[in-house]
Structures are given as C-alpha cells and as structure tokens.
C-alpha cells in the first residue's frame, strides 16, 4: 500500500471517530504537556550537573583541606606557594600534573606539607580561575602559579588587585611587575628530536604534524627541521598542519599519507589530534612487525601511547619540564629574588626542556650520543636554533 492510499483511508473512515476522540482527550493532553516539561527540565539539569561535577569531589576535598590547614598555618611559615590548575586537573598526565609534582618536590625539600606551605586548587572550568586565585591569596600564599595559558586573564586581573603578592604563569607572557612568565625553548627540544629522527630514519624522509599553523607551533617545526638537516642536509621533512588540536581523524589521515609517501619518523605537536598519528603508526606496525616506523611525542613522555604488543613506536618525546620550572621559581621567591616582571625561558641549559629516553630498544646508544653532542653545542651557543621559518631559511643556507 502506498502513501496516497493511506491518506485516503483516513479521509472517510475516521472523521467522526477522531473528532470525538480529540474532544475527549484534550484534557489529558494538557496534563501530559506539563509532565513532559517537568521531565525535560529534570533531564537537562541532570546532564548539566553531571558535566559540571566530573571530579568535583577533588575540588571540595582540596578546598576544605586548603582552608582548614591554611588558616591554622597562617603566618607561621615564611613562604607559601600555591598553584591553580586549568581544566585538565591535577592528574592530567601533562602540565598540571608535572607542575604539581614539582611543587610537591619543592615542598618536601623544604620540610613543608600539603596545605601547610604548598597546595593546589583545581579548576573545573574557566569561571573557577579567579576565585581559586583569590582564595589562595587570602590564605596567605605568597606565590601563586597559574598553570597554562588559559589562566592568562585571571593572572592579569589578580596581579593588579594584589600588587604585594607574587604570581607566575606557565606557557605565556603576562606583563606585570609582580608576575613571572615561564616559557620554554620548544625549538631547542625540537631540534634534538630532529637530530634523533635523522639518526633513526632509513628513508631520509621525516614528517611533522602540527596542530594550528601559529607562531608557537612554528617554533617546533623550525627546530625540528633544523635539527634533522644539521645531521643530514639531504633529509626531506614533510610538513602538514591539522588545523586544530582535537581532530584525531585528520591526524590519522595525515599520518597515513606521510607513512605512505615514505616518511618513517613523524614528530607531532598537535595535542589530541596526535592520537591519530599514534593510531596509524601502531596499525602499520601491527601489520608488519619488521617495518621501522616511529612517532615522536610532545610535551610529556608519550611512551605509553606507543605500546603495541612487544614493540613501541614512540622513538622519544620532547618533554617540557614544568616541574623544574616550578621548583626554580619557587626557590627564587623563597630567597627573596622573585623574578617579577621577567619572561623566563627554560631551555636545555636549566633542564627545562628534555628528551625522553624511555624507549631503549629504538633510542639507541648511538642516537643518545649524537643528541648529547648537539645538546652541548646548543648549550655552548655554538648552534643557534631557529624559531621561525625565516630564521630556518637562514640557518639552512649556512649549513
């Protein structure tokens, strides 16, 4: 039976019956209407509550501890340090976790304990940044770290309100006399990963997958290319940007193409989109165990991401040592030498940037030696690592 037939059927068979029905049911419908509006309000609010309270317990927990012990300790210890996380939380396996580990190490070194001398405040979303900062300042924390560039505005604001306190921000620059800006020499670390990749490659073809084509990610790109070409000027580096930091699918597509075209080591600095690069590398490794194929991780040691059966595709990772920087700045503050208003660049010299050596099978002695040689050259100032594409061009011409 087709639709026309359906429509005809109702026309004559049901008129009377249904009109009757409408009149009868009108009352019921209105009642039901009210019910479902209620149900919806409930459903929506449940969703919002759940979204908002992921890990919420941590916050309330740390809140209480912070306040209780903070107040009891008031004025007793000479320099208290706190930190405010961004949305990733203190266990994000990345910046926040690293910063917190640094802070804990610093506290232990000086005989302090959590809540008495150092503490963190977890932010669940953007609106938590400023209140968390304010709370720590009120509880007599002399130095408060904002972890991540997302806290830029909050730090700017609170630094203005509390000119006598010290603040520090990681990964971006805030211009204020009482704020220390912690940045990293990503190009130097990337240079070393470029050296490692160039030593490892059999095809003389490397890949670079960037997140967004911006000044920051260009630092990674320039350093990587410079490092690879320093080892072997004939090496080709295939460069492509995803366009965002979240699309694993696009990351995987790009990696597929690069590996197809003969690249055998890919360096990614594309956040979650980099997961796609790992996925593709592992897939190829699974298909052919003997194929030499590698990924270089970023920001932290991504060794775990590369595990596949008995092998691991993570050659190394460019690690930003946020923990080192936190310890360093805290110590300076403790000694009354807080670098307020300065832009600190943590690089190879002060161990603010490192290269992961966890994959002993792939990251051979030979590579390690070469990387260390170049590291010394950078430290001595013999090599000046380019930070932009223009500088890279000049660098390549000098080779």
């Amino acid at each position: 039976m087709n639709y026309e037939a359906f429509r005809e059927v109702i026309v004559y068979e049901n008129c009377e019956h249904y009109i009757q029905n409408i009149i009868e049911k009108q009352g019921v419908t209105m009642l039901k209407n009210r019910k479902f509006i209620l149900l919806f309000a409930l459903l929506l609010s449940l969703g919002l509550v759940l979204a908002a309270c992921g890990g919420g317990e941590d916050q309330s927990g740390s809140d209480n501890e912070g306040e209780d012990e903070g107040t009891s300790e008031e004025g007793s210890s000479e320099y208290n340090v706190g930190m405010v996380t961004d949305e990733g939380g203190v266990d994000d396996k990345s910046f926040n976790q690293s910063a917190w580990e640094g802070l804990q190490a610093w506290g232990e070194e000086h005989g302090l304990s959590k809540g008495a001398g150092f503490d963190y405040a977890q932010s669940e979303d953007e609106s938590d940044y400023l209140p968390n900062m304010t709370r720590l300042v009120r509880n007599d924390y002399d130095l408060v770290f904002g972890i991540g560039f997302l806290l830029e505005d909050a730090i700017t604001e609170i630094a203005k309100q509390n000119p006598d306190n010290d603040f520090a921000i990681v990964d971006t620059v805030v211009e204020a006399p009482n704020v220390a800006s912690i940045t990293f020499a990503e190009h130097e670390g990337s240079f070393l990963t470029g050296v490692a990749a160039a030593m490892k490659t059999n095809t003389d073809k490397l890949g670079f997958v960037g997140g967004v084509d911006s000044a920051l990610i260009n630092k990674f790109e320039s350093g990587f290319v410079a490092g690879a070409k320093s080892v072997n000027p004939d090496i080709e580096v295939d460069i492509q940007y995803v366009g965002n930091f979240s699309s694993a699918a696009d990351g995987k597509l790009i990696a597929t193409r690069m590996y197809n075209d003969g690249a055998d080591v890919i360096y990614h600095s594309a956040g979650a989109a980099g997961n796609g690069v790992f996925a593709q590398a592992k897939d190829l490794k699974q298909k052919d165990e003997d194929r030499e194929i590698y990924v270089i991780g970023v920001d932290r040691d991504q060794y775990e991401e590369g595990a596949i059966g008995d092998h691991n595709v993570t050659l190394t990772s460019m690690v930003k040592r946020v923990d080192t920087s936190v310890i360093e700045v805290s110590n300076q503050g403790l000694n009354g030498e807080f670098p307020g208003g300065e832009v600190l660049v943590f690089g190879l010299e002060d161990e603010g940037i490192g290269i992961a050596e966890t994959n002993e099978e792939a990251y051979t002695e030979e590579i390690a030696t070469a990387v260390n040689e170049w590291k010394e050259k950078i430290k001595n100032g013999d090599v000046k690592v380019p930070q932009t594409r223009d500088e890279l061009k000049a660098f390549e011409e000098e080779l």
Partner: protein
Amino acid sequence: MGFIELLQSVIPPALFFSAPLIFTALGGVFSERSGVVNIGLEGLMVMGAFVGIVFNLTFADVLGAWTPWVSILVAMVVSAIFSIIHAVASVSFRADQVVSGVAINFLALGLGIFLTKQFYGKGQTDMVTQPFYTTDIWLLSDIPVLGPIFFEGIYVISYISIILALVCWYIMYKTPFGLRLRAVGEHPMAADTNGISVTKMRYVAVIISGAFGGLGGSVFALTIALNFSHATIVGQGFMALAAVIFGKWHPLGAMGAALFFGFAQSLSVIGAGIPLLADVPQVFLLIAPYVLTILALAGFIGRSEAPRANGEPYIKGSR
C-alpha cells in the same frame, strides 16, 4: 603520482573515515523515517565511544583479539538502552524532539566524562591495547589494480558498514516492517488506522538508531582515537546527521553521503602531497570538504524532502 597511486592513497583512508559516519547515519535514517528527529546522534556516539573504550580496557586480557568486536556489541546494547530516554521523551511524552536530542547530547558527554573520572581518576582514559587493525582482505586483495585500491590495508569494519547499509535498504524497502516504519513517519494517523502501533514502531526505530549510533561511536573510538576524552567525538554525530539529510533520508543515500564526506576529507588531507595540488594554499584544501558538500547539496542532488511527519509527535485522534 599516477592516477592509480592517487586512488590507492585516497580511498583506504576515505573508507576508514566514513565507516563511523555510515553506521551513525543509518541510525539517523531509521529514527527520522519513523518521524522522530534525532539530534542526539552525537550523544549516542559519545556513549558508544565511552562504552567501547571502557569495555575494551577492562576485558582486553580476557578476550584477546576478540575484544574490539565484543566491545562494539556491548556499546550497541548500552547506547540502545540509553536512547530509550529519547524515545520516552519524544514519543510517550511528546516532548519537542530537538530539545530531547540536545538533552541526550549533554547527558552523554557529562555522564561519559564523569564516569571516566570516577573509574580512572583522570580526565581521559589510557589508550586501548586491542583496537581494530587494518588487514589485506583475503583473495580480493590479489585482484590486479582494484585489489590494492579497495582491499589492501583496509578495516574490515568499513565493509561491514557498507553491507549494513544494503541490509538496511532491504529492510526498509522490501519488508513489511520497513513499510510500517515509513508509514509511521509519513502519516502516522493513516498507519494507526491500519492497525500499526505508532508508538511501538517509533520506539523500535529510536532504539535501532541508538544501537547504530553506539556502533558508530565505538568504531570511531577503536579505529581512530583509541582513547576516550571530552574531545573524542567532536561533531561526527552532526556530520552523520548532515549525511542523513544529504542522502535524502535513504539508507543508501546516507551511505553515499558519508562516503562522499570521507572522500572529500581524505582528498583535502592527501591533496597536500599531490604535485598538482601542493601549491594550493593549505587553507583552501582544509575548507574543500565543506565547499564540496555545499556545492553537492545545492547543485546535484535536487530537493531533499523530509518524511512528512518528521518531528511531530503523534497524538492519537488529532488531525
């Protein structure tokens, strides 16, 4: 790069990119054909991805190589159950179906991240150890020319998605169940008069869409993302919804649209390595899939007409 090599590098990625979209879009077709708008596909995918990953992480040691297959089945079942919320709200309570779908999206993401934090104590899960892997399909990959293009280094699940689209077409157009489903979406009152339970049909359709959405989400998670976080499913559900409309609410059309999206995306990425396209600024390649979609929608497919009763709750006796 010759034409054959070009196809060889564009088509396999296009297929793995499309598979999750095909599954989810088929779910959307079922739901919308029965007259229930399903904006919640995104949420159903999130639920599927979450369940697929968590199950995979938990049972990888026990189930070994079968883990991903069992994971997607479990994800289907859980998402199907989850989608009942949408069915109850939009069919029984006659709520606004768009609002209900949006609620599903919020709820799934909130629930997924909340539970991840509860289970693992962090905002994202570890990577799974037993994802899907590509294979060369037996015998077929030995066919000259076509073999390397279509059957080498391919996820089997990509072909399952295409076969499923054919099955869905058969069910929807060649069986009494399919006729009833479409009738309910075109003219529920007429169907009701003929003794078809509109409520039951719509419940079934929404639950099927939940199962397929969960399947799509888990397949995405187990082929591409390999872990679950807030950024695992970002917009794929809406792309699937676009494929439903682009494909004129037809299973094969939706499949074609999803394949088209995959092909365009793959071409835009791989284009950067083709000599002819390498000089084109990258931003043009990045927007190419969307431009192609708009052109296709505007120029080639003609008018896309929704099922008559799509989005309207059925009230027995009203006209």
